[in-house]
């Protein structure tokens, strides 16, 4: 397509190189579940790795149930995160309670780790604002549905931390499509120039609904978009929870200690349709999807746990049973929550409802328009 974009620079007379960049790629747990390269010490610590695995399985159990609920008319349009569990669990696991997460809408794995309840997730995707009143991470933003609009919020939250001299970090998750938007570039630029404590996790799942990454950008990586903002950029295997946890952990610590912002591109794959309202067979080949299943983050981590002797068939069966139980309990709780009072649509429009809007609320409460 565009050869020039990928060709080596040749210097004309009078030219010299004034800037260069390199983008490293990191992977420890390969597609078959084998460790490659020198893995970080925590990879040998079952107290750390097993909880990551459990969270990934819980997320997938939840996700499968959510789709079933949507298909049976008990949940609204739902964006599956199947196949992307390692990224969310990985970065959320290195955040502290004091850090703040700002994310796009396919990040159930991270949300669950952060303490958003399964019932809250069902409530939100079931069409009820109360699902965003997280009882756990009170300062985490609700998911942003418009693309990339949460990225400048993260820059604002990070500015707040910096102004208050708090050792806290804003972690912002966004998709590959979001890197085409101005919101993203403006934010990365500001995060660089103000040295803000923010980490941008670009979850490259290959597809922005029907548009593949190759049609989003001419760059070889999304990680190199960090270069434009003067911040470090790295590409990692996003289906390798060890790499995610380590790379994001380093970026968070750098941000926390005053070293400024970073960008991490995590390569993964959107295994399912964009949402339950989408049909991916219209635009992508089945062979691509079945090839991606071979790189499944859960499968490879289970292989690793098994090879370590940390995980038996019984452990697996017990975990599946526990996850199903948790999800079923949440579903029952969700389905038992009655819809809010109609006039509650006025409850949080303003801090105090202006007198001039009171009549509309009263009419609604009285059953007329």
């Amino acid at each position: 397509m565009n050869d020039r974009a990928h060709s080596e620079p040749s210097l004309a007379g009078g030219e010299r190189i004034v800037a260069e960049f390199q983008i490293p790629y990191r992977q420890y747990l390969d597609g078959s579940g084998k460790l490659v390269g020198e893995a970080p010490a925590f990879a040998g610590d079952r107290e750390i790795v097993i909880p990551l695995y459990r969270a990934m399985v819980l997320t997938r159990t939840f996700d499968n149930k959510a789709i079933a609920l949507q298909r049976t008319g008990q949940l609204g349009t739902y964006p599956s995160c199947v196949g992307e569990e390692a990224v969310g669990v990985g970065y959320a696991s290195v955040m502290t309670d004091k850090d703040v997460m700002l994310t796009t809408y396919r990040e159930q794995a991270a949300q669950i780790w952060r303490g958003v309840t399964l019932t809250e997730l069902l409530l939100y995707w079931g069409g009820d604002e109360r699902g965003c009143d997280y009882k756990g991470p009170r300062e985490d933003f609700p998911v942003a549905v418009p693309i990339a609009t949460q990225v400048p919020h993260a820059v604002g939250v990070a500015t707040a931390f910096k102004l208050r001299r708090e050792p806290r970090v804003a972690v912002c998750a966004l998709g590959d499509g979001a890197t085409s938007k101005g919101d993203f570039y403006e934010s990365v630029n500001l995060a660089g120039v103000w040295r803000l404590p923010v980490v941008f996790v670009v979850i490259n799942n290959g597809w922005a609904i029907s548009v593949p990454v190759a049609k989003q950008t001419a760059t070889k990586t999304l990680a190199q978009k960090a270069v434009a903002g003067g911040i470090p950029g790295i590409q990692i295997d996003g289906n390798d929870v060890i790499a995610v946890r380590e790379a994001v952990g380093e970026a968070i610590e750098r941000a926390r200690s005053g070293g400024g912002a970073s960008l991490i591109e995590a390569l993964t794959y959107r295994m399912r349709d964009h949402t339950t309202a989408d049909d991916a067979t219209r635009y992508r080949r089945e062979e691509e999807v079945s090839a991606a299943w071979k790189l499944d983050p859960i499968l490879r981590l289970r292989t690793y746990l098994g090879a370590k002797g940390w995980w038996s068939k019984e452990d697996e069966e017990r975990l599946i049973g526990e996850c199903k139980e948790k999800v079923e309990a949440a579903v029952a709780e969700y389905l038992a929550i009655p819809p809010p009072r109609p006039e509650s649509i006025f409850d949080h429009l303003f801090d105090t409802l202006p007198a001039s809007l009171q009549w509309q609320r009263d009419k609604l409460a009285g059953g007329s328009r």
Partner: protein
Amino acid sequence: MSEVTMVGAITMALNRAMADDPRVLVLGEDVGANGGVFRATEGLLERFGEERVMDTPLAETVIAGMSVGLAAQGFRPVAEFQFMGFIYPALDQLICHASRLRNRTRGRLSCPLVFRSPMGAGIHAPEHHSESTEALFAHIPGLRVVIPSSPSRAYGLLLASIADPDPVVFLEPTRLYRAQKEEVADDGERLPLDACFVLREGRDVTLVAWGAVVKETLQAAQKLAEDGIAAEVIDLATISPIDFETILASVEKTGRLIIVHEAPRNCGVGAEIAARVAERGLLSLQAPIERVTAYDTIVPLPRLESVYMPQEKDIVEAARRVVRFA
């Protein structure tokens, strides 16, 4: 008490708000060393330092979006958008986030921010510097829209906007920035955000206006008084939510209503006021409602801008028509 222009009153309010509340931050393009292109933020950097008066990169989307993040974290960002023609990237953040963060989190997070922007024609500015698009913002639920029309109201309304727990778009008519001086006490007094101001009482016709054309509307009322027509002049000031009760009470008294705005006629805020009077005050009306507005055209470049803007004589003629009607 000191005599100040409207831009001076705005600077005074910003100083007062920042001195009284450490959560208040000023950010935007050229707001620091330059003191803003209209000098509204002059002296703030020297007094409050660069952590509270932040020159941002030239990027309106991130100015708007980071203000949402700052506000949700408990700060009170007051962001300046250099001209109204440059505020539109912020519409996305206003509609999708600032106005609904409280609602969609059931009050868990909120967004107490102020977006300030100059508005309106009449200063012979280049393209994109002269629009009056307040109706775009007034259509957004969960957002307040405020337009001052005098130094004292600018002072009190801006203080109230900054103190308000919800997002406010505060639009400043550039034509009035230095048009008039007024005694304004720097007493920290806030004006209400959901009340219009009756600037002149009268029994024959109600003139509702806001922003720069309040000036022409008051002049028209003076002219009408010479003819024995007593016009009541209301400065709407808080464009959204609208204090409709004050307008209705006035129309019930006068039986005649003229709405004056510098924005285009089609779907202007005047249409909303006229519709509400038709709904609730129809039987008080003794004449059709008239609107004196700009044309539904692009704001012309300066050579024709006075043609575009409503003039005193247009208001006087409209008032005479409705008074003669019955």
